[in-house]
């Protein structure tokens, strides 16, 4: 007889041998014992967890001539017939190929006839989720009240595709994923029977690769055996399956820790040249950092599915990273894992990932950050009455501000950005004030349109903007034109929010302004806080002159104001 793969050769023949599904086999055996067997079952679960196997055992168990402890004997005529697939009473149907309503009609016809030799006529429909809607519906009546000699067993991996009307007529059994230990146990047994020497670490690798499925694990086992012969060790297994050397993952975390970007790129080169699959490598990296996270959070290594030596290393290495850093690393790696799937050049993605990881700044704890902010606030209040009017104190030197950077990773701290931005405005404002006094006049000379015209038309511009885009118009109403430098119109904004909104809408903004003034200004919104908060009623007023006068009322000596007084006979209102 020609070679059969392990999964077929060692398909369990009795309930006892079905691994990891005791909740199903015990229930079924008890049902047989008490003679309370239902007439329809549906088995669901992932691939290779024993659905079809259990269905076949059950079919034999009900028909067997001399069952032992409600297990089929597998020796009597009927059992043998069923095993060889010769039996007329056990009909296994491939639901995916015979999915139409016609096939189900044939089935309904044949259901009426009594079994030829056994006690029950068993219909096993595998991959039942592929039946068409009509086929399912044609089955409903028969399924609810079949003749007493009929037993239906459905098996499927995709239970959600089976209509509720079918489910409610069946007893439903959910098969579990098989744990690594259980798979190792079974493989050990098979290896012993086939006189294959294999060590525990190899079995562990194979079982892990099986990912909850006995069939997957057995396929891999076959592959290893056909590659290595009858004596197998870990090295050979890694070679046969092209499994990434665990050492490489530890080197990944090492370069991430030491921030050696160049070393990381060399490492990738090595990975590619060793012929490892890039996707497999990235999921390996995910698992590696997941293991560290586990070691870190649980302070134990029992949940890590690795060999003993590696567990110890995880326990040690986990101390190198903070919890937050690990979470962020895992986020970056899983993002890459997702996007790499359909990538043109997976290698590039992997390289970018490594660059990102090695460039990652260590995260700051939010509490510490908040404390820092609170302290700063206190200092601010001690120095001045409000943040908006920061007195020219040495505390606000740019260096100091720059140390106040919020790490981009700390999402929750984002709202604080506005705060830091308004702090930053101080130096900026100083600068613009200083420059403004010098440049605004040359500016007006250089441009065809004097700055004063801009101020005059500002109300009109705001109104026009409101018509075009209400959100931008409203924002614009709360800002003031500042000056014109070399054809650039600067608009002063109270805070970062106003500025960024205008920057985002720069195109439409400059279009509107230039449309009304028939000019060719470039528009540059900058942060500019005035001593008194910008009055809200500017919105309602249309007088450009008034607005300008009001806003700068605090600064009589400003060259602008002077010009206003001189050229337009402006008056102070308040």
């Amino acid at each position: 007889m020609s070679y059969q793969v392990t999964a077929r050769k060692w398909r369990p023949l009795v309930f006892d041998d079905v691994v990891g599904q005791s909740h199903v086999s015990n229930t079924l055996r008890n049902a047989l014992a008490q003679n309370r067997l239902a007439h329809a079952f549906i088995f669901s679960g992932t691939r290779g967890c024993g659905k079809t196997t259990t269905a076949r055992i059950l079919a034999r168990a009900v028909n067997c001539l001399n069952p032992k402890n409600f297990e089929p004997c597998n020796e009597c005529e009927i059992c043998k017939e069923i095993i060889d697939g010769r039996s007329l009473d056990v009909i296994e149907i491939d639901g995916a190929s015979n999915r139409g309503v016609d096939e189900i009609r044939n089935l309904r016809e044949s259901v009426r006839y009594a079994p030829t030799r056994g006690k029950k006529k068993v219909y096993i429909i595998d991959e039942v989720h592929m039946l068409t809607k009509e086929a399912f519906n044609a089955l409903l009546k028969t399924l609810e009240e079949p003749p007493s000699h009929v037993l239906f067993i459905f098996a499927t991996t995709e239970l959600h595709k089976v209509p509720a009307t079918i489910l409610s007529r069946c007893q439903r059994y959910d098969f579990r994923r098989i744990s690594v230990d259980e798979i190792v146990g079974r493989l050990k047994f098979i290896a012993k029977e086939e006189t294959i020497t294999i060590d525990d670490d190899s079995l562990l690798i194979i079982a892990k690769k099986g990912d909850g499925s006995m069939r997957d694990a057995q396929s891999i086992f076959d592959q290893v055996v056909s590659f290595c012969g009858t004596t197998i060790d870990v090295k050979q297994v890694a070679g046969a399956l092209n499994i990434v050397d665990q050492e490489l993952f530890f080197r990944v975390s090492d370069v991430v820790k030491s921030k050696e970007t160049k070393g990381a790129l060399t490492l990738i080169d090595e990975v590619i040249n060793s012929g490892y699959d890039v996707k497999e490598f990235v999921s390996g990296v995910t698992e590696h950092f997941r293991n560290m996270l586990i070691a870190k959070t649980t302070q134990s290594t029992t949940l890590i599915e690795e060999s003993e030596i590696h567990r110890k290393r995880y326990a040690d290495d986990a101390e190198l990273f903070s919890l937050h850093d690990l979470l962020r690393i895992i986020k970056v790696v899983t993002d890459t894992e997702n996007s790499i799937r359909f990538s043109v050049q997976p290698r590039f993605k992997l390289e970018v990932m490594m660059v990102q990881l090695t460039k990652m700044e260590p995260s700051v704890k939010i509490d510490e950050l908040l404390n820092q902010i609170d302290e700063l606030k206190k200092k601010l209040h001690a120095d001045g009455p409000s943040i908006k009017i920061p007195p020219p104190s040495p505390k606000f030197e740019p260096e100091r501000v720059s140390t106040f950077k919020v790490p981009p990773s700390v999402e929750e701290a984002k709202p604080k950005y506005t705060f830091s931005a308004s702090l930053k405005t101080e130096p900026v404002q100083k600068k613009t004030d200083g420059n403004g006094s010098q440049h605004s006049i040359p500016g007006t000379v250089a441009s065809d349109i004097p700055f004063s015209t801009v101020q005059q038309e500002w109300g009109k511009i705001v109104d026009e903007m409101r018509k075009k885009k209400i959100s931008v118009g409203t924002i614009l109403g709360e800002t003031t034109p500042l000056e014109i430098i070399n054809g650039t119109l600067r608009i002063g904004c109270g805070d970062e929010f106003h500025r960024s909104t205008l920057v985002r809408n720069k195109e439409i903004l400059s279009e509107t302004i230039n449309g009304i003034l028939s000019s060719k200004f470039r528009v540059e919104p900058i942060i500019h806080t005035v001593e008194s908060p910008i009055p809200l009623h500017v919105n309602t007023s249309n007088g450009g002159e008034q607005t300008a006068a009001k806003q700068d009322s605090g600064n009589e000596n400003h060259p602008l104001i002077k010009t206003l007084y001189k050229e337009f006979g402006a008056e102070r209102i308040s």
Partner: protein
Amino acid sequence: MESVTHSNWDTVIGQERVKKILQTAIRHNRVAHAYLFWGNDGVGTESVALEFARTLLCEKQSAVSCGECSGCKKMAHLQHPNLKLIFPLPGGDADKPDDDSLENDVVDEVRRQISEKARNAYFHIEIPKAKFIRIKSIREIKKESSMSSAEAGKKVFVIFDADAMNDAAANSLLKILEEPLDDVHFLLTTSRKDALKQTIISRCQLVQCSMLTDDEIAAGLITREGQDETQARFVARLAGGSYTRALELLKDDLRTYRSDVVTFLRSALSASPAKIFDDHDEYISGKKRSEAENLLLMLHVWMRDAIVLREGSDAIFNIDQRGDLKSFVDKFSRSDLESCLSAVERALELLRRNVYLPLVMLSVTVNLRRILHAK
């Protein structure tokens, strides 16, 4: 070309590990009934599958096909009666599901492509308008695998692009894939293992085909395509481990595309926005899709090289463009080159999804501008 006459494992470039696995399996008489060969596009999954099929069908029944028996001779033209090739075929008329016949011109095309495949195992069969392997192809497999065949010996079904099976087809393959008759073998290939159903994967022995090394590709190009050493090395570097890709790259004059990258970047970054719109029309009109794709691919490699160079490593692909790259990196070392890489990749993706070409090119230009000009 000699490729037709040498007919053993040497037809497969590289993949020494895979060859060893399969040969040992034959020697130990442990050949499984279902294999899935997976790996990136063009690394030789199909070539491996065909050679394995040839070895299984060879009358000598050894680990290496003899190339002399009638089986091997028939295999040389992929016309062995016990071999069946399955690949995506255009769907018939939806209103007439029973009408399986293909149009005459499609049949001719299929014939032409199969003979091309027989000549060069790295040629990828691609029938126009065929996206899926349909259930009727699988039904044929079932019928044929259960019947006795014209010739004695094993029967081999090779399914190229197994991920192209639609849901119905994949599901109806499951039962036969798990428990076929004796001496029936299924060899599946895919470049997108993730797109395959887990239930299919679980029934096969998985064999991963690695990306080819630059040396392997270069050696292949020299002996098979008669390329000179420099050209072969250069193309091999850009092929990203794929021999099929290397063959495609040979067809086009790559050097122009690479200088195009520099021109493209220059015009994209320096001109005023208005000028770009004008230039752009001119730039892309008359350019074919494949040309644009090549340009973007080169741009992709360029961005990757820029990142590598910025990080102080020297392992760049565009070795002869080091000077240009260096000045690019110096200028934009503070820009978000990673985003540039993603932007180009996104454009490539859109291009493959058949998005209107000028739109793709415009958006990638604008994106690159925005990223590189950001302060």
